[in-house]
């Protein structure tokens, strides 16, 4: 009987539930033209199952996900970065939470391959964004065993686990890129990766000055039930160009906007203990008296861990992605193109 390869892959749990491009040897060789690296070169073991990723296995998954060969360097760079110990990929693969490693890709190569930073950049509809993030996910499943009901105890997962890759809207940004703000050269190709939830959209078509705008965004960064309130973890805030320009137009630098958001993303303990994940032990661990309702709890404990980017299209919206817990620390670095 003739095997239908689409059905075969779906029945094998070798996909995310969508059909994959069938990895034939010919197609894998085509994908490998996207890198100068040797196909046998070891990339690392994907936790928790610990299966080996080589340049060739990364290429197989990039192909299955629908990548073009020129996307392969970003997939290779991304998965290598995610294996750094401080990101704790193994923990995220197993957690009850639903966060995913969001890749923020800066530099000229992102633009060259058509990564989207403008309207609709969280997807769907853009091949580079959709398939680079999907390639990562397929590896986390096929090589890492991060499957719900097997290694993953995720309660809901989330749509951001299908793909999580974007760039900044450089042409419309009033500020230097996220990578440049961390000291990378303006022409460097850099990936920043942090474990975050799907974006929550914050609309503000009213504010005409930064303080009101940032007060509202700061509130969206706080919530009972968010782990950011109780742990020193990461958060991504993607301002639309319109919102970023409102700040920059008042002379606010990126660093100043981050500083102000850190101060405004705060709630009184009394509000947080009415619901969610408040516990006296968690307050004490932060050096806060659990009985003091007036104590202020910041969503961002370390300004370096607030990843403020400018992305999205025209319109008065900011996307806020809450983070995971303190066992994961964001990573960033250049990748080879």
């Amino acid at each position, binding site marked *: 009987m003739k095997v239908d390869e689409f059905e075969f892959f779906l029945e094998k749990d070798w996909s995310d539930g969508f059909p994959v491009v069938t*990895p034939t040897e010919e197609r*894998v060789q085509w994908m490998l033209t996207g890198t100068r690296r040797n196909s046998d070169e070891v990339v690392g073991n994907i936790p928790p*199952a610990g*299966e080996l990723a080589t340049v060739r296995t990364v290429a*197989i998954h990039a192909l299955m996900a629908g990548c073009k060969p020129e996307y392969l360097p970003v997939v290779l760079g991304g998965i290598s970065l995610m294996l750094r110990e401080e990101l704790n990929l193994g923990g995220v693969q197993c957690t009850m939470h639903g966060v995913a490693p969001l890749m923020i890709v800066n530099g000229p190569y992102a633009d060259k391959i058509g990564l989207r930073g403008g309207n609709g950049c969280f997807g769907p509809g853009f091949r580079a964004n959709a398939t680079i993030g999907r390639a990562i996910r397929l590896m986390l499943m096929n*090589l890492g065993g991060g499957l719900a009901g097997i290694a993953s105890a995720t309660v809901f997962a989330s749509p951001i686990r299908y793909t999580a890759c974007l760039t900044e809207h450089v042409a419309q940004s009033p500020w230097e890129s996220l990578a440049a703000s961390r000291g990378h050269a303006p022409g460097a190709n850099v990936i920043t990766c942090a474990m975050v939830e799907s974006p929550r959209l914050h609309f503000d078509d009213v504010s005409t000055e930064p303080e009101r705008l940032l007060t509202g965004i700061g509130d969206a960064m706080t919530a009972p039930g968010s782990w950011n309130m109780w742990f020193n973890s990461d958060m991504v805030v993607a301002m639309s160009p319109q919102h970023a320009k409102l700040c920059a137009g008042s002379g606010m630098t990126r660093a100043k906007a981050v500083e102000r958001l850190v101060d405004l993303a705060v709630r009184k303990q009394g509000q947080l203990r009415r619901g969610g994940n408040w*516990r006296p*032990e968690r307050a004490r661990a932060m050096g806060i008296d659990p009985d003091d309702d007036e104590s202020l709890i910041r969503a961002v404990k370390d300004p370096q861990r607030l990843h403020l980017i400018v992305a999205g299209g025209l319109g008065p919206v900011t996307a806020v992605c809450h983070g995971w*817990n303190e*066992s994961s620390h964001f990573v960033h670095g250049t990748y080879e193109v």
Partner: protein
Amino acid sequence: MARDLPFIDPTAGRSRSRIALAPRPIDLAGKVVGMIDNTKEQADVILKTVAEVLESRYGVARVIIHRKEHYSKLAPHAMIDELAKEVQVAVAALGG
């Protein structure tokens, strides 16, 4: 398997070795029991209480509790090896 098919098994190379489960004990009398505290809040309280009950009601000789660095991190191999040497029964215990 995919070897006979005109396409590549993306998981090829996966180690197929399986480890047989250790025989389950009939009872716990006289056994040394190991537990891993995952560091979640009150895990230590819960596990200590369970340990007391295992000793008083089930005749467990001793309960050894190891504490992980963080609940979201894997237990280090050294900790698992040490437990394997010390105990006859181990429980992957959780708190929180």
